[in-house]
């Protein structure tokens, strides 16, 4: 009954919407998904309202009208991303429009010459903004506001001077030029010419911004001028060029506008800046800078243009129209601000999702309990090696020459040599957090490095990467292709490295949080040096930690820390690829597993199960609230101050246990037998210990048992 009950509870907590949501929000494309949704809705809603909205020629017409603001939106987007803003786009737009008409109508330039000229002038005007904002460090908003007024005034003046000429030059009422007309009316495969150009430009811009150094600089500057400057980016220059580009893009739009309408109106581009601003913000380009892409800007412009255009075509009166636009703008910016402000906080809030785990009643380890786990003092007089010379040797291992290696917090592999291990040197500096280790056939040291992956160290101390990613699980929302917390490894006779990844949801230093969550977040991965391929072979394990190849080399043992189980994964034989439980419900939290000389296995315990913690494991919501409301330093923990080492046999019977009453080996995360001695390491210990084992084979060494005598 209770079994069934447990099962049900497990199911109930297995899948969690909050977990799904948290991992969803983590996705970078989430920022883009919202504007996209809005866009689709808007198109459907208004499209259904306006008659024959989707008929090809109408669509083409609309698209043509969208394109020119589209360019301006791109310009606005670039400036916003760089942490600025360009309100003078409208003015520039008008000037360029007028200029190109002047050149075509009055001076009769060929269109092919007009375009570059216009772009050049646009760049020039942008350069003015850029110089003021970038180098003189004026405030973007006011500066561009002023230049906007100035540009507008200039347009007016030009207009007074030339508009009548353009207008009254009767014979050139319509400036005839195939190129010009193509720009204005032509289309390519049914797509209006300016739309084609817009898409091309947007694509190039996207690639440049998101995939090239200059682009990254723009994002960096927008994300934070200070940091950008501190990392040595030339902020001034970057900003300058951003505004130049903004000018060019605007100019491009204006030329197309001129080609389409042939109108030198001084009202041209009135309110275009607002339109563009609205668009890009709606598209999810943050006004706080450093966020957004050209693609999103285009989405935004589509949204805005659909709305305004539809409102106009529905004959909505102008006032209501502007009211709606204003509300949309307000809404968009509000969302934008709030989204950025709260996104990460809310992810933090809901990321940890504890699940239900019911452990069987544990054997009593207390003194006088008479169980195999009964507390004893067998580790009391262990010799200490490298006392206070070593910071947390998670794993220890010895090579054929009897040198002792420890993987320590600083990211080193520390080596002790000499007959009393008095000589200490740093064998290799890998970085990350080196954890489990194993020697391969050629005496390369294979190391699991927390936060980095699986690395190898040649006998001469040269470090080389073996793998740091595996095949992604497509059914999972969270990208688990990177290896975040490789924990312990062992090597099969065929040279394949089997290693455990404790959790894919948390970083190295967050492992206790995973303990609170207690989800099957871990997995067993196999790396084959021969083919250099990495493959996940077992998923959904609860913090798999120790990995040890069975003596016969036909199966591997996996220790699940929080589940207190030892599993066996068959590499060959009838049960090949199958998993079976060897031991379940130990009273201790399992860490590394290693071979013993007598054909049994050593198992290190990182800590003890306590009754209250077991109870907490059966009350996920309690743990959730604890993680939320209690300061991390006061969280309930497994008792990691009393570690021990136990020995068990192939059948999974626990044979004996070793305890330290002094607490010098507060917790033991690893142990190796070597020449009749047992060496002890601990994740937070300040020493390596060793004790003489009664009745152990004094000749036995790890490498021999794996790769035979040399």
């Amino acid at each position, binding site marked *: 009954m209770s079994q069934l009950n447990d099962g049900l509870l497990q199911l109930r907590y297995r899948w969690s919407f909050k977990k799904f949501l948290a991992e969803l929000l983590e996705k970078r494309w989430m920022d883009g998904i919202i504007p996209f949704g809005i866009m689709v809705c808007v198109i459907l809603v208004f499209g259904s309202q306006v008659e024959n909205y989707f008929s090809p020629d109408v669509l083409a017409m609309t698209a043509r009208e969208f394109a020119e603001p589209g360019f301006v939106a791109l310009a606005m987007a670039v400036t916003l991303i760089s942490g600025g803003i360009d309100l003078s786009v409208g003015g520039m737009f008008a000037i360029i429009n007028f200029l190109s008409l002047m050149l075509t109508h009055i001076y009769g330039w060929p269109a092919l010459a007009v375009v570059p000229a216009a772009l050049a002038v646009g760049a020039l005007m942008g350069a003015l903004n850029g110089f003021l904002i970038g180098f003189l460090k004026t405030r973007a908003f006011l500066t561009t506001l002023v230049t906007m007024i100035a540009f507008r005034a200039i347009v007016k003046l030009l207009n007074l001077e030339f508009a009548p000429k353009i207008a009254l030059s009767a014979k050139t009422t319509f400036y005839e030029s195939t190129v010009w007309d193509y720009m204005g009316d032509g289309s390519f495969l049914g797509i209006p010419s300016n739309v084609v150009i817009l898409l091309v430009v947007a694509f190039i811009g996207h690639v440049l911004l998101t995939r090239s150094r200059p682009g990254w600089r723009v994002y960096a500057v927008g994300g934070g001028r200070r940091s950008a400057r501190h990392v040595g980016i030339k902020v001034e220059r970057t900003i300058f060029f951003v505004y130049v580009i903004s000018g060019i893009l605007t100019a491009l739009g204006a030329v197309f506008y001129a080609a389409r309408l042939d109108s030198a109106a001084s009202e041209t581009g009135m309110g275009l800046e607002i339109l563009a601003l609205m668009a890009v913000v709606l598209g999810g380009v943050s006004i706080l800078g450093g966020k957004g892409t050209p693609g999103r800007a285009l989405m935004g412009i589509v949204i805005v243009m659909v709305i305004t255009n539809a409102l106009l075509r529905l004959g909505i009166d102008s006032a209501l129209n502007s009211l709606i636009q204003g509300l949309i703008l307000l809404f968009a910016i509000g969302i934008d601000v709030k989204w950025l402000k709260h996104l990460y906080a809310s992810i933090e809030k809901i990321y940890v999702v504890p699940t239900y785990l019911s452990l069987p009643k544990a054997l009593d380890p207390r003194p006088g309990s008479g169980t195999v786990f009964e507390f004893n003092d067998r580790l009391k007089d262990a010799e200490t090696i490298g006392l206070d010379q070593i910071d*947390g040797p998670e794993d220890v291992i010895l090579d054929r020459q009897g040198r002792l290696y420890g993987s320590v917090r600083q990211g080193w592999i520390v080596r002790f040599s000499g007959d009393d291990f008095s000589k200490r040197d740093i064998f290799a500096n890998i970085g990350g957090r080196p954890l489990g280790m194993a020697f391969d056939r050629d005496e390369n040291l294979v190391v699991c490095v927390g936060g980095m992956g699986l690395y190898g160290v040649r006998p001469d101390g040269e470090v080389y990467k073996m793998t740091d990613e595996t095949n992604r699980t497509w059914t999972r929302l969270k990208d688990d292709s990177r290896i975040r917390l490789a924990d312990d490894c062992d090597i099969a006779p065929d040279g394949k490295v089997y290693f455990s990844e404790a959790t894919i949801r948390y970083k190295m230093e967050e492992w*206790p949080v995973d303990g609170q969550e207690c989800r099957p977040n871990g997995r067993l991965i196999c790396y084959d040096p021969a083919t250099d391929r990495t493959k996940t072979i077992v998923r959904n394990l609860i913090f798999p930690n120790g990995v040890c190849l069975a003596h016969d080399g036909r199966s591997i043992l996996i220790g699940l820390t929080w589940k207190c189980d030892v599993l066996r994964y068959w590499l060959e034989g009838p049960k090949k690829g199958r998993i079976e439980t060897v031991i379940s419900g130990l009273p201790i939290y399992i860490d590394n597993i290693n071979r013993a000389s007598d054909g049994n296995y050593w198992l290190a315990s990182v800590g003890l199960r306590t*009754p209250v913690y077991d109870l907490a494991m059966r009350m996920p919501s309690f743990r959730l609230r604890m993680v939320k409301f209690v300061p*991390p330093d*006061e969280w309930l*923990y497994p008792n990691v101050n009393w570690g021990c080492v136990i020995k068990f046999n192939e059948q999974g019977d626990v044979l004996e246990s070793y305890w330290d009453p002094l607490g010098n080996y507060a917790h033991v995360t690893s142990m190796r037998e070597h020449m009749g001695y047992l060496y002890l390491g601990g994740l937070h*210990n300040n020493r390596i210990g060793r004790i003489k084992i009664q009745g152990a084979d004094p000749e036995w060494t790890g490498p021999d048992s794996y790769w035979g005598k040399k």
Partner: protein
Amino acid sequence: MWSRLKQSLFHRNDQYAIPPMDGVLLPNNKIDQFRVVRDSINRPDDLEVDSDGRLYVSTGNCIIRLHGASLEEEAVIAQFEDPPGGLNFHPDGRLMVCLDGKGLALVGKQGVEERLDIAGDGAIRCANTAVAAPDGRVYIADGTSYHGPREWYFDLMEKRTTGRLLRYDPETSKTETLLGGLSFPNGVAISHDGSSLLLTESWSHTLSRYPLSDIRPETRDVLISNLPGYPGRIVPASGGYWMTLFAMRTHLVEFVLTEDKYREEMMRSIDPAYWIRPALSSGEDFLEPLQAGHAKTLGVMKPWAPPRSYGLIARLDEDYEIRGSFHCRVNGKRHGITGVRERGGALYAASKGNSLILEGRSGGA
């Protein structure tokens, strides 16, 4: 359910209500520097000094007297079937002894002379301290009507408020209940001017004062509220008072106190020794709950780890302001201080948690 709602609505502000150990309560190691008068003495609970400077200790099932230059000599002066607790002299020279579950005993020249175990509306289950006013009437802090002093933590984890303040009149040998529904009244003392009565309530972390002439709930005057620990006994000092805090509050315990489902299941199914609760001593048994801060790194337990047990004596001045404090921190071994007395310049403390009698300089706080 409501608590759940409250949690979600009000962001559990109560979680952050524990004041930091700061200012006059800044942790130090002064208790660790005390001289050990006796060790391996069986869980001493309270101390009392007589006019000749002899030290009376309630320990195990008896009262012993320590005397001599450095208190090296000792004599058993009374035996009980139940562990004795709070000690105080009655003006008539008899020693008032609180007995676990058995109320009060007055010990005179001929040993136990008088017993008081029923008080008006029920047995005195948990007499923590008894103190006599100058007029000879005895005020008794009866912690709870459910458990004896030994099981104080049951009372805490059951969130009971059944404590009483009783007054016993030797003349008429009448007992009356002055106050009820207190949350574990622990220490009771008469102010220096003899005009008012001081009372500590452990579970509400308060020290309050009542005018001796008129003790009613209405006349309560809270002197200190929201202490960072659970106040125990309070005794007069030269120009002030000593107050023991026998254990500290921790976020985890406060949290568990709000988690009814978990708490009840824990109390139902788990050995009390391994509950999440404050204790007088800790660290011996490895099935005890462990908190993140406790994890040893490089073989060291951090002194600032969350205290399951702690040693703390606070010094109050005439105006009941805390002026200083003696500490024994988490990594120390002199925890659970329940009794304290001052004699001359010396301060004697009983560490019930670690079964020690300690002597320090009273001026040190």
